[in-house]
């Protein structure tokens, strides 16, 4: 078995899965993570769609797999540039220069900063939160109330925040927020059986196995309401509750509604690392600054530079299972490349 050196940029689920699989093929791996912990965005989530399993199960599985002498990890280390010379690579990070025969970029996504949709009131009104904030509250296992501690009589979920939105600079669909909203609506209803929950959507994209079933369960078992119309603007009432303006497009009439809390389903954006690395290395980009694979269908793990691979959400929005599958597929491509 060939023992080659591979640097993986990013210690999220794609990076961890790829590291484990590559080490099993006899290679030496260095994972370089810019943050203080591994696990990436998934570690901020409480439960996962569509099964409502604990996200820690995924993280634990992957962390166990990388507990291996062939894998070393550098945390709090930001990769600034990757240079190719005579077929091998130099990865520049925090003043270090790491040698590598191949590099996998798995720098992932950042959650859309909801403050950029000022008309939705995130960061302005106390009772406007986003999907990640709600996960934190679920995780804390404390009663979920409005900001002043009063009971939530009604909660509105807003789909497509920072996605499908030219004004936010993101024309693409983040694709996982639809089912995240349905999942969170169910979880909230389980905790607060008397709270009315209404989701405002443009289209509900239930593409994955079990997604449509979860949507149906939300309606059938949990009584979640769905209004086809995107939030136009939110304003705060004197008592801290919120006023929502949307169109109920199916009845063709404008709709206004009072709600105690708004949950914004923030979309995915290329992470800072994905953006800066793409720019510094000179990789082809798409959908803003996500990384462009060499061939959309056939070489989805090859970047525009030979020997430099991509996996996970640095190329565009993905679910967890897609990310894991993508990481494994990158491993095959890297292994084949190194055998040449």
């Amino acid at each position: 078995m060939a023992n080659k050196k591979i640097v993986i940029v990013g210690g999220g689920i794609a990076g961890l899965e790829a590291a484990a699989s590559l080490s099993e093929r006899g290679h030496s791996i260095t994972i370089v993570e810019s943050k203080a912990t591994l696990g990436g965005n998934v570690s901020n989530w409480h439960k996962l769609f569509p099964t409502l399993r604990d996200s820690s199960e995924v993280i634990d599985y992957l962390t166990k797999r990388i507990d291996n002498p062939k894998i070393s990890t550098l945390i709090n280390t930001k990769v600034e540039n990757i240079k190719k010379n005579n077929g091998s690579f130099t990865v520049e990070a925090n003043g270090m220069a790491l040698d590598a025969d191949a590099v996998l970029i798995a720098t992932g996504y950042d959650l859309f900063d909801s403050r950029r949709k000022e008309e939705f009131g995130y960061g302005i009104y106390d009772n406007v939160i986003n999907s990640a904030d709600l996960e934190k509250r679920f995780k804390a296992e404390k009663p979920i109330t409005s900001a002043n501690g009063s009971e939530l009589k009604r909660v509105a979920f807003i789909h497509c925040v920072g996605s499908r939105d030219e004004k936010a600079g993101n024309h693409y669909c983040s694709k996982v927020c639809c089912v995240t909203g349905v999942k969170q609506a169910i979880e909230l209803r389980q905790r607060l059986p008397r709270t009315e929950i209404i989701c405002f959507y443009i289209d509900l994209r239930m593409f994955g196995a079990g997604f449509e079933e979860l949507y149906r369960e939300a309606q059938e078992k949990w009584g979640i309401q769905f209004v086809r119309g995107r939030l136009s603007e939110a304003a705060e009432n004197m008592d801290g509750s919120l006023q929502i303006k949307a169109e109920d497009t199916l009845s063709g009439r404008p709709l206004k509604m009072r709600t105690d809390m708004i949950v914004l389903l923030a979309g995915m954006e290329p992470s800072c690392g994905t953006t800066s690395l793409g720019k510094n290395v000179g990789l082809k980009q798409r959908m803003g600054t996500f990384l462009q694979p060499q061939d959309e269908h056939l070489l989805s793990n090859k970047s525009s530079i030979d020997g430099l691979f991509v996996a996970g959400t640095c190329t565009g929005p993905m679910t967890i299972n897609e990310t894991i599958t993508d990481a494994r597929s990158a491993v095959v491509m890297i292994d084949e490349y190194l055998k040449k």
Partner: protein
Amino acid sequence: MKNFGFSVQPPRYIDIDNFDGRILMYVLQKEPSFNICMSCGCCTATCSASNILDFNIRKLGLLLRRGVSEELEKEINKCMLCGKCTLVCPRGINTRNVILNIKKALTKIDENEL
């Protein structure tokens, strides 16, 4: 003849085959962004006229794209051209310019220029 109160109703279906696209084509030529509406309803939700009148700018645009332009003239005059719809549109459609050009197209049809 005895009048039984029956009459022949015109069909209600959207007739894609007999599509009068004159207004639509004119508007699309002047404001091509009109094509990319995803019917999210933000324009209607924020519309100053919709809140007080039976007026739905999203639906009006949709019907126009389906070749239905009956009562368009009467309806479009309810718009006050305040432009709030343009501010909120997530697809960046210049809705205000769409309305302006619908009005222009209607005038041109009146003057036999379309």
